């Protein structure tokens, strides 16, 4: 290095452009009265099953679509399309999360003027999707009982950013298959997220789903007015 080496002050956030895109998208979807909901979880927590339950209960009230992120398969989109919900498959090609430009690709194939609710089924992991804004108005996480009540200790960022937490597969609770402690989990989650709404439910038996869909209906009425 020589004397001509300079120190350049940059002070730029690596996330800044995505965050700007996210704000722009939120404004645009607010204007078109479309509620975008980002669903995040581990693989196998039940994102697709919950979406099927949710859309089948709300189909008379709302026009809905799902943007599916999958590393390299179309299994989930096929399940959804089979149920009559429009599903756009994004192949993330190895990416571990969605950001706004990827979500926008999915939205480009949908008519947002007609749609009331659009769900994003994010890539299944609890690390990367926590750090990237998708432009959604609501962030929702699903934790399933078999994963254990210690997950907030391992993935604090994910639990801290969500508006709602769905505890799926509660039909396991009270059986010898699990020692999951719902009260302890709630205490751990509220440590870094005092305002989060928690919905214990079972996509398999349907228990608790109505409370979740009622909440979602209120959120949609508020957002899309």
């Amino acid at each position, binding site marked *: *290095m*020589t004397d*001509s*080496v*300079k*120190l*350049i*002050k*940059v*002070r*730029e*956030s*690596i*996330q800044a*452009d995505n965050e700007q895109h996210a704000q722009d998208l939120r404004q645009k979807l607010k204007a078109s009265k479309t509620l975008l909901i980002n669903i995040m979880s581990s693989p196998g927590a039940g994102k697709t099953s919950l979406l099927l339950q949710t859309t089948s209960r709300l189909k008379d009230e709302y026009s809905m679509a799902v943007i599916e992120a999958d590393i390299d398969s179309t299994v989930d989109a096929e399940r959804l399309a089979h149920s009559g919900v429009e599903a756009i498959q994004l192949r993330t090609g190895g*990416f*571990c*999360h969605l*950001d706004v430009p990827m979500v926008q690709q999915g939205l480009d194939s949908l008519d947002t003027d007609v749609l009331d609710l659009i769900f994003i089924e994010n890539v299944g*992991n609890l*690390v*990367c999707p926590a*750090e*990237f804004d998708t432009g959604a108005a609501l962030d929702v996480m699903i934790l399933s009982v078999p994963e254990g009540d210690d997950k*907030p*200790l391992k993935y*604090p*960022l994910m639990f*801290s950013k969500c508006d709602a937490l769905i505890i799926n597969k509660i039909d396991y609770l009270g059986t010898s298959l699990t020692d999951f402690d719902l009260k302890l989990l709630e*205490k*751990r989650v*509220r*440590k*870094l997220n*005092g305002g989060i709404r928690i919905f214990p439910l079972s996509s398999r038996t349907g228990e608790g789903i109505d409370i979740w869909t009622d909440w979602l209906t209120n959120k949609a009425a508020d957002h899309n007015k």
Partner: protein
Amino acid sequence: MHELPVTEKILTIALKHAERNGLKTIYSITLQVGRLTDLQDEWLQHYFNYLSRDTIAQDARLIIIPEPIKLQCGECGTIIETKKRDLQDITCPHCGADGGFSIMSGRGYYIEEMEAE
């Protein structure tokens, strides 16, 4: 886990500032990385070396400064600095609250500065 897309952004931003300032070689890039993110320092450099080949940043060293985790108590507003492993045991030293903290810092990544000519 997502060091690759983050590293791509670091390179893009560094090259943009180099062009703006009419620079020919980047020697180092100083980053601030929040302690709540799961980025691994050694992987950032590893991917950076790969992505920056044949650019003016190809020999640049990444200098990573950890950004501490700071929480604000939802009850009394006290700011508390903590470590990731201590998050679950936190209580507010001022009012004793044991939940409802918000994260004030520790989740971002910033490019602070770079050495170049």
